[in-house]
């Protein structure tokens, strides 16, 4: 029972991290129609800038703004210099160009920071455990990460549904030309949205620093899962990104924890281990396939 609860919390924590990544990716893909493979690079840049600042200053509380600023600035530059030229292009050009960006950023980081993984300390204020139920301690840092994820989700929901910028984002996603013809500089709006998505990816990167290793290529692993999330949720929808992140984060965590265990009660040890490992790593793709069979445009398709 305790194990189940703990895994549920782990699943929730992964879900909220995936949401931070998926939010930016789904906005950029849904509104601007650009497939940005380099979104994972922004996550890596946030993590590296955070780890670097933490090493220099010795405090996580300066690592956080450093990671956010680095990711947002690199994101804005990426939009202005590269992505902007891709809006009118077909998806193949976008994939090629943003794949090039991945190679560039991985090369740059490997050259400037080296290939060995960096470690980041959990901030001392959050290094303890919180007893969320009697007999169930859970790391305070992971709880704080969840809190941040929920706060970002609420903030994004408010921005999209209640503010002028949110209205323009929704309007621009289906009638870009009309938004321009009514006097809105949509290029500026796109840069802003892209930088915001980059900032959230950077936030995920810095926060993950103390619980995973910071290393070259960390963005690509998580990018694939993030794409699964936005496809499951419905491309372009923040609500969909949230629902998709919950579903995929939970299935992934619980699958990895319990599928091999369940198999063991049926099959012999080595066979169960092998099959369980294989099965639990493809669970999210099975879930995606199932969702798409029932709802081809995802859980929350964007209307219009």
């Amino acid at each position, binding site marked *: 029972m305790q194990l189940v609860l703990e895994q549920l919390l782990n699943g929730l924590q992964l879900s909220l991290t995936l949401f931070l990544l998926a939010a930016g990716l789904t906005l950029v893909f849904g509104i601007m129609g650009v497939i940005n493979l380099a979104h994972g690079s922004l996550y890596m840049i946030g993590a590296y800038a955070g780890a670097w600042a933490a090493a220099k200053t010795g405090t996580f509380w300066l690592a956080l703004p450093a990671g956010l600023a680095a990711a947002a600035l690199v994101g804005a530059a990426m939009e202005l210099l590269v992505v902007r030229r891709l809006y009118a292009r077909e998806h193949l050009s976008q994939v090629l160009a943003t794949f090039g960006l991945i190679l560039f950023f991985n090369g740059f980081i490997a050259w400037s920071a080296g290939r060995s993984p960096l470690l980041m300390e959990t901030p001392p204020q959050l290094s303890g455990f919180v007893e969320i139920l009697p007999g169930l301690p859970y790391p305070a840092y992971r709880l704080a990460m969840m809190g941040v994820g929920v706060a970002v989700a609420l903030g994004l929901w408010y921005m999209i549904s209640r503010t002028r910028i949110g209205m323009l984002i929704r309007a621009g996603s*289906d009638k870009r030309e009309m938004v321009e013809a009514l006097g809105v500089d949509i290029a500026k709006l796109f840069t802003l949205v892209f930088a915001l998505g980059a900032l959230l990816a950077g936030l995920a990167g810095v926060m993950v620093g103390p619980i995973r290793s910071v290393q070259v290529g960390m963005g690509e692993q998580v990018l694939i899962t993030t794409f699964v999330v936005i496809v499951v949720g419905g491309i372009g929808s923040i609500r969909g990104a949230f629902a998709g992140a919950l579903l995929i984060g939970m299935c992934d965590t619980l699958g990895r924890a319990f599928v091999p265990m369940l198999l063991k009660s049926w099959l012999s040890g080595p066979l169960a281990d092998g099959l369980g490992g294989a099965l639990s790593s493809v669970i999210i793709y099975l879930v995606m396939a199932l969702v798409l069979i029932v709802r081809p445009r995802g859980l929350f398709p964007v209307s219009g």
Partner: protein
Amino acid sequence: MLRVDNITSSYGGGLILFGMSLDVGAREVVTLIGRNGMGKSTTIRAIMGLTPARSGAITFDGKRIEALRPHEIAQNGIGLVPEGRQIFVRLSVEENLVATSADRQGAANKWSLARVYDLFPRLAERRAQSGGTLSGGEQQMLAIGRALMTNPRLLILDEATEGLAPLIREDIWACLRQLKSEGLSILVVDRNLDALLGLADRHYVVEKGRVAWSGTSAELAVRRDNIERQIGI
């Protein structure tokens, strides 16, 4: 106020406009009439910078605008009610009005939600509904209200009464007459000569990407039969 001077335009292939020219004066209502496919919408797209003119000049209030980007042209004070309405379906009626609203020139009689709802009470009833759920006529009203909320000095309407029921059409014409009486300049593309004669000061007949005839409403009334044949009514 607006001067289009000998512009050519294309969508990448052959030329669509071959030296199109027209003028709209302050407080004037001017029409573009002509058969389908003659280049009326293309002229409007060139004015708005959506399909920029290849050559020629477009001046608005003495300022050259043919090389500006669409949002800059709109910000100079031109409000567009496009062909096909182009309502934002992911936005509510009220959000459609608010999202792009602006008052960049400090209008004397500024447009507000209340004023738009006064002009089109049906929009007030539907303010919380999604723009995509409106009827064609209501969408047209919304498209007009949305353009007015940018406080334009020139309003451009492309086929604003196309496909609407006669009663709704009459609402639209009444609205345009009111806007004219308030001193707004209007460039309108339509096929309904009766209504246009009562509203507009001058007319341009467009044929194959250039002006085939132009004149005042009085001049048009005199040779109405000819013009009707020319524009295929």
